[in-house]
């Protein structure tokens, strides 16, 4: 939507000193919903200043807006296209800070209306990250005995060279919290404990029958 309009006083009155085709390819699908799109052509002075919410690449009001960790606003399609251009050297177009797909935050405004899930659009916009709040401090936090998993007891066969199997450890402490079921770490730990159990049983049979 970067049209150059010539007025009587021979000044170019479109959004910027920017050549055509800046956004034609990236925004063909949503030009109708751009609140400032139609109005800007009448001349800059009577249009409210929306420049705070302009994409730094296409200079239109940002659509499917994302913001970088360095605080710069872009349309996700614009930024995605830029990141694709230089996959090995992804920098913020404004300040050249290192950025990446995982380091931008989507902005969801209230006025976006019947917006479909932006992740269904192409190119997909990265989803928001939501960090759980800090837990409110459990029962006897110093010892950790009141919390599940605060006390762990490992037992193995105690014959001399294999004494390493006998471990008593983790009397409380933060490191003893078991991984949540379903995570990869949980699966790995379960696998490891099954292997150790099998080794212990084999050793037991060997002691008895040999």
């Amino acid at each position: 939507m970067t049209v150059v309009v010539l007025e009587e006083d021979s000044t170019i009155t479109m959004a910027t000193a920017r050549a055509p085709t800046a956004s034609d390819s990236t925004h063909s699908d949503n030009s109708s919903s751009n609140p400032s799109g139609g109005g800007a052509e009448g001349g800059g002075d009577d249009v409210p200043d929306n420049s705070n919410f302009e994409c730094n690449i296409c200079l239109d009001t940002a659509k499917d807006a994302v913001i970088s960790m360095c605080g710069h606003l872009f349309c996700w399609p614009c930024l995605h296209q830029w990141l694709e251009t230089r996959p090995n050297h992804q920098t913020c177009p404004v300040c050249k800070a290192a950025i990446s797909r995982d380091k931008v935050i989507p902005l969801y405004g209230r006025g976006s209306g019947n917006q479909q899930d932006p992740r269904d659009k192409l190119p997909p916009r990265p989803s928001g990250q939501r960090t759980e709040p800090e837990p409110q401090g459990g029962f006897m936090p110093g010892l950790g005995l009141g919390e599940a998993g605060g006390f762990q007891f490992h037992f193995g066969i105690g014959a001399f060279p294999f004494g390493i199997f006998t471990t008593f450890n983790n009397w409380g402490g933060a490191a003893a919290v078991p991984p949540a079921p379903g995570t990869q770490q949980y699966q790995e730990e379960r696998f490891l404990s099954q292997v150790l159990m099998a080794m212990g049983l084999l050793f037991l049979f060997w002691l008895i029958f040999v």
Partner: protein
Amino acid sequence: MSLLKEPPPGVTVDVDQAHTKLTEWVVHMEGASGTLYEGEKFQLQFKFSPKYPFDSPEVIFVGEHIPIHPHIYSNGHICLSILTEDWSPALSVQAICLSIISMLSSCKEKKRPPDNSYYVKTCSANPKKTKWWYHDDTV
């Protein structure tokens, strides 16, 4: 818009030219006052590819008067990193003009690049096809 409303001093866009062909602009600029280029007038030609702004425009000096500068070849090609590898889609024509005026203004001695005659004979017409080596931050 910002280029026309608040251009760097001495910079004007040739609107008629831009109107006939949107992808080719000519910008008139004057050397900043108080510098070696004070009072001199230059024309910069911008060519925008279909990939703009994700690809940098092709920017060269055109016309009779090419500034004499250690980073500007006599055929108008400019050795300036933001025109190739340091390009950013957030840069505007205004920003490029300002960079070039700044580059001119910080010049201490008017001279051509040391490899000027060789480069001008062998280079492509498109400066973006040159593999530039950016090594001098002082000018």
